[in-house]
């Protein structure tokens, strides 16, 4: 007998803004029929700091620390995307060593961010804290490297327009190599803990399926798009910095379900390790540091630049009027579009899967609300 024609009174559950697993201050207005989700209305904006307005009142250099606060898990990538956009506006070329350093730190940060994504995803599925703690342990190693490189653990403010703030410190290449050696077996640990675990498979396979067409139509980017089977990675398809010199694969999924999204992130971990290995081996000796640049005056014009951040394509649309402050700065945050699809994905799933799908989309409210 089909149970689908049995309905109970609709239950309205306000999930968030304070809830253990809404990844920040997200508010989901869930309409439940028993345990099944009928509708889900997403309310955002609890973390709105009006970054774009702030940018209009800051110089180009002064805005770099603010980009740290967008996607605070992957600050390096935010710095990078912003700095590259300004450099494109200025038509500025960056020393080769600075490019390599940027690649290394951006990929390290991608690993840190993906680790957090995997850990919190497992946490959302109810593997209480254990995978999260393992991921944190490994992420800590990355953060310690960053601490050494740029002196901060979360908001790095490391990139500068035209280069980087500091050169790599003495002996850091040894530490990064050690980290790669340490990280590889840990990935196997996660595989043992999660990938083939029957409960995990049950919870993730064929749930929250995001088809290729829907993903493109909703402008989903990053690992979520790749999990839906679109082989698209800006690092490969529109290479910036020196990504075209490295060999790496673009992991893609087949079905676009939760498991595929998890799988793509896991594979990207090892691909990033591969990139870092090559970058460390090929890093040239040269000047990489630049002054902070108090007065940067690009010519009037507009530029749109996007870079592959761990959550997708982070775009900066900068309009300059020739003064020291940007006339308009638009941040095209990947999580913003990625969250928009949530309503589509959660219709008809159980309430427990809502948090799972949310976790698998790997959103970050700092970036969505800006």
């Amino acid at each position, binding site marked *: 007998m089909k149970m689908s024609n049995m309905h109970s009174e609709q239950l309205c559950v306000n999930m968030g803004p304070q809830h253990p697993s809404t990844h920040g201050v997200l508010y989901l207005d869930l309409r439940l029929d028993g345990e099944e989700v009928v509708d889900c209305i997403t309310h955002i904006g609890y973390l709105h700091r009006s970054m774009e307005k702030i940018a209009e009142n800051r110089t180009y250099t002064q805005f770099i620390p603010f980009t740290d606060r967008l996607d605070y898990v992957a600050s390096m990538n935010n710095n990078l995307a912003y700095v590259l956009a300004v450099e494109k506006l200025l038509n500025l070329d960056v020393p080769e060593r600075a490019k390599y350093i940027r690649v290394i730190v951006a990929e390290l940060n991608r690993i840190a961010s993906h680790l957090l994504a995997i850990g919190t995803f*497992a946490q959302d599925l109810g593997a209480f804290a254990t995978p999260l703690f393992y991921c944190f342990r490994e992420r800590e190693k990355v953060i310690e490297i960053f601490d050494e490189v740029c002196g901060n653990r979360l908001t790095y403010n490391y990139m500068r327009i035209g280069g980087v703030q500091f050169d790599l410190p003495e002996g850091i290449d040894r530490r990064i190599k050690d980290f790669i050696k340490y990280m590889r077996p840990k990935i196997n640990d996660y595989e043992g803990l999660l990938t083939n675990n029957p409960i995990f498979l049950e919870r993730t396979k064929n749930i929250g399926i995001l088809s290729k067409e829907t993903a493109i139509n909703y402008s989903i980017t990053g690992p979520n798009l790749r999990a839906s089977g679109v082989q698209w990675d800006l690092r490969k398809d529109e290479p910036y910095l020196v990504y075209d010199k490295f060999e790496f694969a673009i992991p893609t999924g087949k079905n676009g379900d939760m498991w595929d999204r998890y799988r793509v992130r896991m594979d990207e971990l090892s691909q990033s390790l591969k990139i870092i290995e090559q970058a460390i081996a090929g890093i040239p000796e040269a000047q990489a540091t630049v002054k902070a640049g108090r007065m940067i005056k690009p010519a009037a014009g507009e530029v749109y630049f996007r870079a592959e951040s761990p959550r997708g394509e982070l775009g900066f649309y900068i309009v300059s009027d020739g003064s020291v402050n940007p006339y308009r700065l638009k941040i095209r945050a990947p999580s913003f579009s990625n969250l928009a699809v949530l309503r589509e994905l959660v219709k008809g799933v*159980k309430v427990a899967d809502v948090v799972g799908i949310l976790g698998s989309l790997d959103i970050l409210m700092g970036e969505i609300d800006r």
Partner: protein
Amino acid sequence: MVTLSSLIVMVLVVSAVLGFISASAMFLIWWERKVSAHIQTRFGPMRVGWHGVLQPIADAIKLLCKEDIVPVGVDKWVWWLAPFFVTVPAVMAFVAIPFGKNLIVQDLNLGILYIIAITSTGIFGIFMAGWGSNNKYSLLGGMRSAAQIISYEIPLLISIITVLLFSGSLSMQKIVTAQAKYWFILNPSLFVAFFVYIISATAEVNRAPFDLPEAESELVAGFHTEYSGMKFAMFFIAEYTNMFTISAIAATLFLGGWRGPLLPGPVWFLIKTYTIIFVLMWVRWTFPRVRVDQLMGFAWKVLTPISLVNLIIAGWFILK
């Protein structure tokens, strides 16, 4: 006719049992925190006493001193009584648990049936908490819990019946005596029954990976979301007492109870019980949580058929 001496004995026994229960629950809370911490490569509580042994006592004092918050719109009576309805059955089950050769409060001749019947009533408390809290998360947790416990009762009972076929008695002491030759777990049929029992008992006491009624990530804290202070502590104590009970039953039914060489009976009994509890904790901190429909599917599609087939095979063994 209650004489003075029997009254004194009764009071002594009751206080001993209650003392043991609270001591055991506190020890288990500390142990769980330690096990989880070390699985996660942390230290866990380290401040109060040696490696934080006194942490549960500190927590209990803190909870006792807390303001008793009554949320607006709760169903007062139901909400107030729920913690008692959860805790009392958990305590009552101790009457028939054999700690040693003569160390049992009352060797009921329907011992195991009594325990199962009493512990099953704990669900009333959980559902009352879910209903009375006037909170949607609590309500969902309570409903999940009711569905879950009723479905897992079936494989649980069938696996116990398999044991009873071999022991030939419902009395806990007689079941232990029946294992004089060998532990029941060494019997292949009862080996299967042991796992069915452990899994369904885990679900019965709402432990991970079946902790849906209090599913942290979706239901905040499930049925006890709105409880604080001592009422919350009672839920907590009930959870750990129940965990002790099911492990004690497993030890009695399958691992020979208090039987064992060299060491005295109660020691053997506690070793076996705590080993099972450790496994439960280990499992809890490893696996993701199952979803509510998968949980029910697992009970009806996997555990119940297995236990039924197992029961038939066991019966055939005995009749042969």
